[in-house]
């Protein structure tokens, strides 16, 4: 107690007394006619007791804090739920039942989405250094490769992540096809999936030009010319992509905008719709399990 500065000590003492009075019902110290000695002794006792009380009080307070802290997530979730009403949907999404027998093939969809997320994150870091103009694109990529910390790793992850994503998307589509998972009631989700495949390929195509080396430039020239050979809208589409009749300064910023804003935005939105339908309609059961089910039912019927 002596170690504490004056005002604090007095305050402590007062608190102790007040608490002592309130909790333990000890009015002795405040009796005016009490003997000085006994009063001092009482005070000493009370102070001692007060010390213990304070300890207990602290422990109690700590526990209360702990309880409050553990309730914080629940409180926050409750607060959000009260204002969004998302609780039932989130619970329905996370704790929905998935039929027995779903194997590793069923992870291909979420893996594709994860590859997309990885592309988004690495893409954001590349965008911090990339400059989408015919003059600067190549040098900014050189800068990323040679000077930026872990630049080559992040660019390599983005470049090879594209390959991994294309492969995963096609594998996911193959799984859906061979398991007959595109059939009623999931036809719409198949269509959304095919659009997502197309958008993924568009990402690969528009991203290919951005490093602006010989390989990417000439491959893109041919790709755009292929577009131009289409009927009716072909030439207009090619003009739109090039930003004119010839490959020019606007071409690269056009591809950049498509690659950064339009296509990934569409992909994110369609992944949301795709997932919503998966949660709503449920994960398909493996087709061979359905056959067993039929046999069981047949037996029961007999």
């Amino acid at each position, binding site marked *: 107690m002596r170690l504490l500065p004056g005002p604090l000590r007095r305050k402590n003492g007062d608190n102790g007394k007040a608490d002592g009075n309130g909790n333990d019902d000890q009015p002795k110290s405040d009796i005016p006619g009490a003997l000085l000695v006994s009063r001092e002794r009482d005070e000493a006792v009370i102070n001692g007791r007060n010390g213990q009380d304070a300890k207990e009080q602290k422990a109690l307070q700590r526990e209360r804090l702990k309880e409050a802290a553990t309730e914080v997530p629940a409180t926050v979730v409750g607060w959000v739920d009260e204002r969004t009403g998302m609780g039932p949907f989130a619970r329905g999404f996370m*704790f929905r*039942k998935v039929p027995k027998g779903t194997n590793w093939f069923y992870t291909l969809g979420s893996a594709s989405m994860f590859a997309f997320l990885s592309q988004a994150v690495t893409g954001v870091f590349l965008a911090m250094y990339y400059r989408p103009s015919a003059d600067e694109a190549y040098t900014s990529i050189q800068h990323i490769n040679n000077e930026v910390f872990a630049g080559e790793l992040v660019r*390599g992850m983005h470049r090879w992540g594209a390959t991994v994503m294309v492969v995963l998307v096609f594998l996911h589509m193959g799984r859906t096809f061979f398991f007959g998972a595109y059939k009623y009631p999931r036809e719409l989700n198949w269509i959304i999936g*095919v659009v997502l495949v197309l958008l993924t390929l568009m990402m690969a195509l528009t991203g290919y030009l951005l490093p602006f080396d010989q390989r990417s430039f000439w491959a893109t*020239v041919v790709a755009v010319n292929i577009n131009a050979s289409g009927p009716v809208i072909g030439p207009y589409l090619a003009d739109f992509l090039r930003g004119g009749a010839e490959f020019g300064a606007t071409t690269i910023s056009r591809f950049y905008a498509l690659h950064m804003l339009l296509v990934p935005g569409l992909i994110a939105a369609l992944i949301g719709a795709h997932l919503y339908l998966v949660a709503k309609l449920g994960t398909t059961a493996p*087709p061979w399990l359905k056959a067993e089910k039929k046999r069981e039912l047949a037996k029961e019927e007999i």
Partner: protein
Amino acid sequence: MNGREKEQYLREYHVMKGQGKPFFPYAVAKDSFMAVFVLLVIILMAVLFGAELGPKADPTTTTYTPRPEWYFFFLFELLRVVKPPEFVFAATIGIPTLCLILLLLLPFIDRNPERHPLRRPIATLTGIAVIVAMAYLTVEGALAGAPTEIELKTAPGLEAGRSVAASSGCLGCHRIGDNGNAGPGPELTEIGDRLRAPAIRRTLLNPTAPMPSYRGLSQKNPEQFSELVQYLSSLR
């Protein structure tokens, strides 16, 4: 699927779903494991193969043979398989668009209620055939190198033009003698029979898609360009 089959499916699926396990944590655990695996593969590929950057894009050169990313090889190869020029449109836009439309309409084309791959042989075989065809086209596209040599006998005085032709990427799309790819461009072995030098010059400057224009070469290196035209018109 008619109404009865739909209802039967929904009822059966409801039973199977009821017997299943909750998405969290069972499916989430598998998905997370897969996500970590995918990330490791991406990092491993990035470390092993790096982020290659070729020479800077130069619109004035035509010496570069365009090569798409490997997963576009099947489309690229489709262009080279289709030879007659009047069908090039079919290869560039026609077949891919048709495939895309078929893919989009798949649930409406295949209305067989059966889902087991072995009990719907037509769908399964079609799927396997498509995969084999795409794999074949991809491998062919990968093996088709970027030849830069022409072995055809050349009249004296035209060697310069031959080397320009060989290094200008013509062989990426055209066949000259035993060299070059069979498409998407027409064979040039006897082009001199069909086109005179001025026509060849015009075609090089204003080609039909998807061939790139050689205007850049004609502006940067007029001698090389005229050597190229002379060489091509000598092929007959």
